[in-house]
């Protein structure tokens, strides 16, 4: 049985429990920003190259055309496009040069595979040569027959 002092406490506890059960599911929410930030746009723009400039990525290109492309990226981000989808769109519209790297298809694979193959081949050659025992040269094996030693030198050696 509850004592008279604990009854108000119980009511307070129950009240708090009810309040907490109502308040708990409510989490702070912020309004979703429909406009992607400059940083978000530039993160993708920096990976795409201006198709009408030389070696200039879209994030630093000062041309009006580049501004249009950045605006387009912003629109696409706002519509929920992924980074991959945006890149694919730009490649489909303006060609492979905007991606800044050769597409991984066809003969382009040579560009990706050749360097590691050459390095591995060179390493294998090096290892194979290091493992091979040093060949004995005739000069090293028999000193008196060495053609490099002049006859008078040989004579002097015998005297000594």
């Amino acid at each position: 049985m509850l004592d008279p002092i604990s009854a108000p406490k119980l009511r307070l506890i129950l009240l708090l429990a009810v309040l907490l059960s109502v308040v708990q599911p409510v989490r702070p929410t912020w309004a979703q920003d429909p406009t992607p930030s400059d940083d978000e746009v530039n993160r993708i723009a920096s990976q795409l190259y201006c198709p009408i400039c030389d070696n200039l990525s879209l994030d630093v290109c000062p041309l009006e055309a580049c501004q249009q492309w950045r605006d387009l990226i912003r629109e696409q981000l706002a519509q929920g496009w992924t980074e991959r989808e945006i890149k694919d769109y730009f490649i489909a519209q303006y060609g492979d040069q905007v991606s800044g790297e050769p597409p991984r298809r066809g003969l382009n694979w040579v560009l990706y595979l050749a360097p590691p193959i050459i390095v591995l081949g060179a390493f294998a050659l090096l290892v194979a040569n290091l493992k091979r025992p040093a060949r004995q040269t005739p000069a090293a094996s028999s000193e008196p027959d060495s053609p490099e030693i002049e006859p008078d030198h040989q004579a002097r050696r015998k005297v000594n």
Partner: protein
Amino acid sequence: MPEASSQAPSTQPKRVSLWAIAAFTGVLVVLVLMGIRLVQNDATPVRLGEAPKDFSLRTYTGEVINTADLRGQVVLINFWASWCTTCDQEAAFLEQAWQHYQLEGEKQGVIFLGVAYMDTESASRAYLADHGVTYPSGPDLRSEISRIYQVKAVPETFILDAEGALRYQKIGAFGSFSELQSALEGVLAFSLD
């Protein structure tokens, strides 16, 4: 008495390592493949009198036009962009010429094709609306058309004769309607001969 050297210099051919042959062959294959790739990428510039490769243009209205289907007509191909300031100057002349040279009955006309070079679709559509352009225009997807014509900047205009051979090329904007008209008349006269 010391024995005279009886060891003759070795006459055996130098042994070539299998590794060396494999490495040499590998490098050779890589170089050949890279060469093929370079040749594939090397688009030859279009020359007057020669027929450039045909292309398809999907216009902003959804129509697909293939230049191979336009034989028998003079074709004007104009590369433009919404961000190009000098394109504005000639837009009115081009539209005026299009209105003037459209096919009229049996009379030989001129087909105009506008190719949006490195442009965004929304900006291109706005440009066409602002300048009242009514001839077929579409984007240069993957830059394939500008690569055929080796376009490096806009505006550039090419006029093909009825056989599909290039007869006129203008780098930069037309300064007047009469300049554009005289270019077209020259190609039309050539095509009628």
